[in-house]
């Protein structure tokens, strides 16, 4: 009995253990530098090109808002999935997350996106809503007809001879306004993305 008490004291009252128990400190909870967190602003000037919004895979995660005289992207953390695509897509390095920007500069990688207007002629009712709603169209021809007709050849699309014609696909900025106003879901913007390396913009 006596022996076992001494054995227990020896076994469990080690100075090192007691010291650890009393003075142990948990490492501070900091994100490692390579952790890809929510995108943060780097302070460079945003040009309101909306590339970040167009590549974002989640609805409602990023918006470009006007703050005084300048534009600045705003991240909604509840929606953002921290994929880092907005950082890669931004041509002006406005955003940064983890080491995404750093590796992008080091390896010269980029993400290019091309927009393609696709119309399903079977479901299109030629109402012209997409033509009227398109912000690029509005800029190109302020005198757009309410039914989507236009005398200007610089518009992306217009109603002509009872049909919807896509004239300048390359001008599309991928904002998808036409998709939201289309009553039948006939018009859709394909966003064709490509991950590249060593290609100068």
């Amino acid at each position, binding site marked *: 009995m006596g022996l076992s008490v001494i054995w227990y004291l020896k076994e469990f009252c080690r100075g090192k253990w007691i010291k650890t128990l009393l003075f142990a400190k948990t490492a501070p909870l900091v994100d490692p530098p390579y952790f890809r967190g929510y995108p943060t602003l780097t302070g460079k000037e945003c040009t309101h090109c909306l590339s970040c919004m167009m590549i974002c895979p989640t609805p409602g995660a990023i918006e470009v808002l006007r703050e005084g005289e300048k534009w600045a992207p705003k991240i909604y953390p509840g929606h953002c999935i*921290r994929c880092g695509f907005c950082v890669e897509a931004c041509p002006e390095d406005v955003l940064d997350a983890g080491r995404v920007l750093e590796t992008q500069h080091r390896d010269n990688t980029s993400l290019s996106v091309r927009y393609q207007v696709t119309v399903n002629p079977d479901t299109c009712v030629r109402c012209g809503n997409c033509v009227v709603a398109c912000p690029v169209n509005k800029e190109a021809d302020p005198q757009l007809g309410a039914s989507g007709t236009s005398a200007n050849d610089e518009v992306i699309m217009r109603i002509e001879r009872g049909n919807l014609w896509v004239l300048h696909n390359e001008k599309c900025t991928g904002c998808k306004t036409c998709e939201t106003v289309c009553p039948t879901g006939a018009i859709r913007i394909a966003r064709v993305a490509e991950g590249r390396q060593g290609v100068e913009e």
Partner: protein
Amino acid sequence: MKKTVDVAVPIGPVHPCWKEPIRIKCATKGEQVLSAEVELGYMKKGIERIMQGRPWQEVMFLAERVCGICSVVHNMVFIETMEAISGIEPAERAAFLRVIVNELDRMQSHLIANFSYCYTIEHETLGMYLLNEREHVMDLLERITGNRVNTAYMIPGGVRYDLRPDDADAVKATLDLLEKNITRYMGIFESGPMIALRSRGVGVLTKEDALRAHAVGPTARASGISVDLRSKHPTYRKLGFEPVVRTECDNYARIMVRFGELFQSIGLIRRALAMMPEGPVRGGGICKGGEVRYSGEAPRGELTYVVKADRYGRVEEIAIQTPSIMNIDACAHYMLKGALSIADVTATFISSDPCVACTER
């Protein structure tokens, strides 16, 4: 005929051993299980419907979210399907980086599967040791890809980030540590008499039954079937891949196959780091239209994506077949039949590494 079933014991959908909701109804006679039936459908997400009409840069994130544990392989198989549709070849260095990240993901998945088994047979000490090792693997994943779980690492034509100069050394050092520790824990599992009582000869799935039930992955390999889709993958063939096969057919064999695959993964990562050429990690390439059925080896077995894309690379139709449904069926119809105790049902079920989130999508 006289009814021989005493009681139909339902296990689940909420049960301390289950990680995800599923119900197993066992028809019992005394303590013996006569037959078992699995009831699925508690966590249907409808993710394939959400994927429709979206381009790859959106679907790849949805694909990762099919399964929380083996998210990398869903990303990899989906991206390789899109590459097969569009005829894109990944950059050579990127192919090896994909293998490294995929094997790290497989390691953490196998470690958590073995943890679950140890936890289910109430050997929590060993389970927690294994979870501790998993943490090292997750740290490596975070170091390479930037995230622990939904890594979003692979894109058509390559991967998103290259290794930094110090990353390869960190990976090698951690792999040495993991090899040392997992050897010790595998020894504990191999030689533990109490573990053997709960595992050896329990939940036997014979080779014939496994073939009949179309078991896949470690469950099939523990029944003596040498099936592993990695042996058909071009990059794995360069690395000299050989599947791990055991012939005991019981719970013990299934766990030991996973332990064996942990060491195999360590070897594959080391070889990939040594063989990896210098060069770009993104080859570029635009996704095109077409329809392809493509399979890859997930930690749990064969994972198949059937994707039909339109000419701008948008997914029009998609169907995912995940490995767990085969193993859950094999478990319910063959392993549990004739189990000597209700207490073995949970352990046997967990030993087949079911992932309900994958199964129901």
